[in-house]
């Protein structure tokens, strides 16, 4: 057994400058060729929509509408070239319909639109050959963005930005979904089960979706720390 391992293929969102899975280096977007970066970008959209839908269910219509617009405002444009390169149709119209439905505040319509976009994202994800290391990189990418956003949302013991705090929840939920999927079967299932269990311990970072007060547990360092632990757990996949 090799004792030293490193996720060499790991794309680094070291500084996490906002929620872009694209390194801000002036180089062409890697989304067309970097599967993990592509899946993270789609995962960020999933996270936004998930938190938007949860807020709508909770009656926070205005906040939900804001979250529903962010995928097209912040994330979708970077994906268009990747869709073309990967032979995928994209889902701009579905995103637009979703934003309209969320704006109107009708939960049934919004749920239907949410389902439609999720299906379109699944189609965009299909065809990407996902191996355990790649999946770990996606989980890690989502968690790093989540940690960065959480740190913006909760700062100096106060709710500094509820929107970013909510984004962090959505991205972490998407990371959990990835871990759960990979934990279902296969040789790597124990590693992803362990990751899944670790992520499950983060629930108290979000005692409420619309935060009213900050508890001692609400500390971005926990999310950064768990992201690092996940990276170490995932080293097992390369040994």
């Amino acid at each position, binding site marked *: 057994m*090799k*004792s*030293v*391992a*490193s996720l*060499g293929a790991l794309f*680094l969102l*070291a*500084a996490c400058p906002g929620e872009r899975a694209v390194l801000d280096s002036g180089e062409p977007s890697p989304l067309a060729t970097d599967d993990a970066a592509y899946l993270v970008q789609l995962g960020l959209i999933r996270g936004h929509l998930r938190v938007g839908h949860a807020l709508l269910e909770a009656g926070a219509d205005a906040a939900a509408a804001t979250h529903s617009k962010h995928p097209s405002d912040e994330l979708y444009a970077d994906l268009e070239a990747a869709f073309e390169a990967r032979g995928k149709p994209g889902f701009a119209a579905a995103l637009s319909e979703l934003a309209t439905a969320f704006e109107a505040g009708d939960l049934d319509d919004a749920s239907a639109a949410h389902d439609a976009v999720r299906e379109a994202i699944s189609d965009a994800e299909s065809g990407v050959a996902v191996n355990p290391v790649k999946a770990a990189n996606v989980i890690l990418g989502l968690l790093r963005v989540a*940690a960065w956003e959480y*740190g913006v949302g909760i700062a100096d013991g106060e709710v500094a930005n509820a929107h970013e705090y909510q984004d962090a929840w959505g991205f972490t939920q998407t990371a959990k979904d990835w871990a*759960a999927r990979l*934990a279902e079967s296969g040789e790597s299932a*124990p590693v992803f*089960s*362990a990751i*899944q*269990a*670790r992520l*499950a311990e983060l629930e108290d970072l979000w005692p409420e979706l619309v935060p009213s007060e900050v508890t001692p547990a609400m*500390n*971005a*360092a*926990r999310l*950064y*720390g*768990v992201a*690092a*632990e996940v*990276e*170490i757990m995932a*080293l097992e996949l390369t040994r």
Partner: protein
Amino acid sequence: MRPAFTLLSLLLLAAHASAEEVVNVYSARHYDTDLALYDRFTEETGVVVNLIEGSSDGLIERIVNEGEFSPADMLITVDAGRLWRADEAGVFEPVQSDVLEARIPAHLRHPEGHWFGLSKRARVIVYNKEAGLPEGIDAYEDLADESLKGQVCMRSSGNIYNLSLLASLIEHRGAEAAESWASGVVANFSRDPQGNDSAQIRAVASGECGVSVANTYYIGRFMGSEDAADQDTVAGIGVLFPNQKGRGTHVNISGAGITRHAPNRDNAVKFLEYLTSDFAQRLFAEGNNEYPVHGTASGPIATLGEFREDEVDANVLGANQAAAVMAFDRAGWK
């Protein structure tokens, strides 16, 4: 089903953790020889090395962000200036080890054990061999001599190696003299600062400029390369260890420290001590064409010969960093 599965995963994780001793290493070094070294440590001790790689500043930022929840046990990075930055950011926890104190010279480690030098690199003067060493040049200070007008090329002032070199000059000559030196060097530039140390070496070899400074491991890489162009480059330069008649040549270090919240501190100390063993020192240094902190040099750089090194406390290379930045800025060194 799901709760039961989660419980199972927890049990698996617990079993895994209890069965395996680990040390979590965050490293800014990326050499295959390091991996072989870490494998040997595992064979000898049973402690598995979990290696997380990244840039120096990126890893420091990560450890700071992770705070008390960081799994990092150790940070390995290059340049005393960066070790100092990490220490200033509260990354390290002091270590008292008779083994480390016996094997690492005092000037190459933090006085209170926050970090320890593991290998050295010298910052030397390189000159165009065909043109020869300009007359009267034998110290860094001479690079500011007006006789070298239009002959000096350098990398940018923001580079940590240049910052550490100027920090050492500040320590020896004072801030005013160091800034005056920087101004003199700027006046001798043959071009605006650009490229890394390799680019300076190539520029000197091609005759684009006459003299520059570079870390010895860059020269070692050219020497060890099988590429014909690299061999031509190294054949086109001469190497001078500066200040041999005085304080000695400026050296810098790769080094490591144990992190403040290290969850596996005992293993980390054991690993750090292992890295100073004779066997590890040879591999750790050779992996990047560096000099060991104890023992003799090996690999291509050994052919450069022995030299007297500046034994200024490596800690001041970081402590004087802010003053060096300001001096470079006022001197107009881009």
